[in-house]
């Protein structure tokens, strides 16, 4: 159809080839070749995680570690150089636990930022540098976690920062769902790890 012509041209405008960061990929990950990896610190992605097209992993601010079965959606930025002028004490930029989902357009700033296992970082969220988000938290869309803020485990942050405990106890279920999703995604997203190695 008509738009195919555009798609062909689109490849001409691919990400600017910056300094290639040293990467450490598990063999079982899925990473789209239009994902953007920049920076100097190493980027580690553990087994069966999925990186969508146009997702950005920036290791300028420090090393980026992504756990197992995480999903990094398009346009999200992991390791964004924080607007909050906060200097990382260690070289750890961002650490994502296992089963973490980073939704479309979310930004996780670099600088000892930690996101716990099974946590969802919603659409358009912003996690400030040095913030520590606990396990199995849910950040609803457009939530902003201030730099250095701490979100305890099993917390839901909604309606501009209101917090409440998540009492559903469905962490296991969610992980399972994530697994299913990954199964599907790895079939759909043509993976090209070689490009980044």
């Amino acid at each position, binding site marked *: *159809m*008509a*738009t*195919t*012509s*555009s*798609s062909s*041209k*689109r490849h001409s*405008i691919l990400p600017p080839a910056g300094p290639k960061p040293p990467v450490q990929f598990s063999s079982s990950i899925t990473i789209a070749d*239009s994902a953007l990896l920049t920076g100097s610190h190493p980027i580690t992605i553990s087994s069966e995680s999925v990186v969508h*097209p*146009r997702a950005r992993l920036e290791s300028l601010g420090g090393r980026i570690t992504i756990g197992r079965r995480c999903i990094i959606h*398009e*346009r999200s930025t992991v390791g964004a150089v924080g607007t909050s002028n906060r200097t990382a004490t260690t070289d750890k930029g961002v650490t994502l636990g296992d089963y973490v989902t980073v939704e*479309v*357009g979310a930004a996780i700033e670099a600088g000892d930022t930690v996101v716990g296992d099974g946590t969802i970082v*919603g*659409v*358009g969220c912003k996690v400030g540098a040095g913030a520590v988000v606990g396990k199995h938290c849910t950040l*609803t*869309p*457009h939530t902003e976690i201030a730099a250095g803020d701490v979100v305890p485990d099993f917390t839901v942050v*909604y*309606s*501009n920062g209101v917090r409440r405990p998540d009492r559903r106890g469905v962490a296991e279920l969610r992980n399972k*769902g994530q697994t*299913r*999703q990954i*199964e*599907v995604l790895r*079939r*759909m*997203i043509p993976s090209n790890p070689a490009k980044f190695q």
Partner: protein
Amino acid sequence: MSRRPPRGEYIETDTGNKVARKATLVGTQNIILGGKTVIQPEVMIRGDLIRSVQAQSSSGGAPASNTAVAIGRYCFLSRGCCLRPPGRLYKGAFTYMPLRIGDHVFVGPGSVVQAAFIGNHVHIGSKVAVGESAIIKDYVRILDGSVVPPNMVIPSFSVVAGQPARVIGEVPEGGHEAFELRDLYKTVGNNPQPAPS
């Protein structure tokens, strides 16, 4: 947006679609544009996330229908918005469902739309997050910055806002014409015309 790079900023298809060269359309073969639809730069459409149930061989849906995103006529996708089909667990298996959009639908800049269905004459403001498999009927206005929760059904003639979004008013009888996007369509493209005063 009426500045003109030497080589037309937009690709104008024979059906009158105006697709910006800087737009990212993934899986174009699964994207249907009804015609006279404007796709501005930095728009992203995930056509690659097709429904995968038939692959799962459960619920043998028509295998032919691989359409991931179907967009009607006179739609206007503003700069930086993102359309992606909603995913959900269907009988324990994960699958994406097609995203269907009617005519005269305006999607504001920076919005992320994961609805299942959007009717005709819908205005989605800027920085809106439309949750997965939401259903938006005709003549709905979603104000800027709203977060439409997943699975929400928005009836016709609703004004919607808030986090989470709720119906906060009704579209008055005199407000229908405001949803028309024909004039807006004229104002963009490679030789845009000024909006009629």
